[in-house]
């Protein structure tokens, strides 16, 4: 791979991506002698001499600052345990709820099976801590939830949110994309929500196409007739 040619390519574990001292190993890569080797199956990418591999499949790997959608799995005396599809359970503490909660009435705020939008506030050895102290976070009361492969989330969002903006504009729905692959759709009519869901599933199906936004625009034109 030369400097001009920073096109993405599929790499497999153990494959040499570049040779030479001019590059730095990033996520999903390892430096062995003079070579930078992939340790994951995914797409390799170069940015400012930093080589990284974006995984294409597998489970969701939580990162700090991610907005995720999860299901309340358990109530404890000082918070909620939430399943966000990561290997570890995530904990939402009472302290991270922006209003007063009676310690005997945790279930009145969120009960088993409730869906919640939260932000990953920190990841430590004990587990993942969540927060709902920002705008747009909190319990979900209405709308529908669509599950997609977590690795397809960047395609659903698009470059700087272009894809999700397009879907929002075309369907008139409010959409929140969780980094863990759960997507919340809320529209005025159930038909709108189902239409938005259909378009998201179309995006995930065609996620390998380049110039996907254009393709989705065409799809909307066809579907709207």
């Amino acid at each position, binding site marked *: 791979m030369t400097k001009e040619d920073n096109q993405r390519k599929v790499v*497999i*574990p153990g*494959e040499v991506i570049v040779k030479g001292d001019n590059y730095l190993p990033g996520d*999903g890569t390892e430096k062995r002698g003079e070579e930078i080797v992939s340790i*994951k*199956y995914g797409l390799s990418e170069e940015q400012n001499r930093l080589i990284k591999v974006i995984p294409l499949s597998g*489970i969701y790997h939580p990162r700090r600052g991610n907005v995720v959608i999860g299901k309340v799995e358990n109530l404890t005396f000082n918070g909620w345990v939430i399943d966000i599809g990561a*290997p570890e*359970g995530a904990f939402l503490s009472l302290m991270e709820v922006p209003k007063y909660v009676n310690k005997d009435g945790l279930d009145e705020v969120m009960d088993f099976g409730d869906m919640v939008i939260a932000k990953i506030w920190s990841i430590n050895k004990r587990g993942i801590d969540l927060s709902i102290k920002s705008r747009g976070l909190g319990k979900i009361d209405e709308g529908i939830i669509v599950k997609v492969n977590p690795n397809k989330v960047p395609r659903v969002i698009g470059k700087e949110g272009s894809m999700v903006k397009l879907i929002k504009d075309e369907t008139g729905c409010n959409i929140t994309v969780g980094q863990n692959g759960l997507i919340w759709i809320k529209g005025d009519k159930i038909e709108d929500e189902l239409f938005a869901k259909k378009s998201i599933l179309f995006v995930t199906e065609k996620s390998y196409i380049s110039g996907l936004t254009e393709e989705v625009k065409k799809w909307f034109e066809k579907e709207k007739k």
Partner: protein
Amino acid sequence: MTKEFKRPDGRKVDELRKMSAKVGVVPNADGSAMFSFGDTIAIAAVYGPKKMHPQHKQNPEKGTLRCNYNMISFSVNDRIRPGMSRRSMEISEISKWALEPVLMIDNYPNMVVDVHINILQANASTRCAGINAACLALAHAGISMKNMVSSVSIGKLDKQLVVDVDKKEEDWEEGEGATDIPITMTSDDKITHLQLDGKITNKQLKDAIELARKACKEIYEVQKKALKESLGEEK
């Protein structure tokens, strides 16, 4: 010994059976793959990394790999009893040992990666097909790996070494009989697994490893192709 050694199915001594590989065959698994040598077909499904349960089995220093090799009851001519047998337990453990050296399992403390290998159709070399499929499935599950592994069985029929034994060759009875040597190697020629029960001279074992090295290169290409071409078809 003789140049024109006849194999039962007419292959050359260093010729593998027709291979095929595909990833993403089990939609509900986190990673999955199929690998076949001729009539031997293996499917591997990977679940995880997930939290180890029960908790007392968790290892806070590194993750755990669990393998499960299973021959499906219709995979051979005489129906085999379903469930674990002494043989399948042994091969499960062998597959684990073959895969563990390339897996960067230290990245997943307190977690477990489950690999389920199922043999759909057996015509010898099932453990090799299983390991090849498992390696593809692990890569497909997005697990950090130092390298890929490829596995092949080298046979010694009387005194002749052959690559990729099939059932007829496994039951070879002329001369010294048959010895089966399954070998697993990484793509940079390091051995992660070698099994041998039978008689073989030092020199011949070296030749066998050399043959395996060549065969593993071919298998690696098939595996590489399967992973690179899975993009686009996959949902």
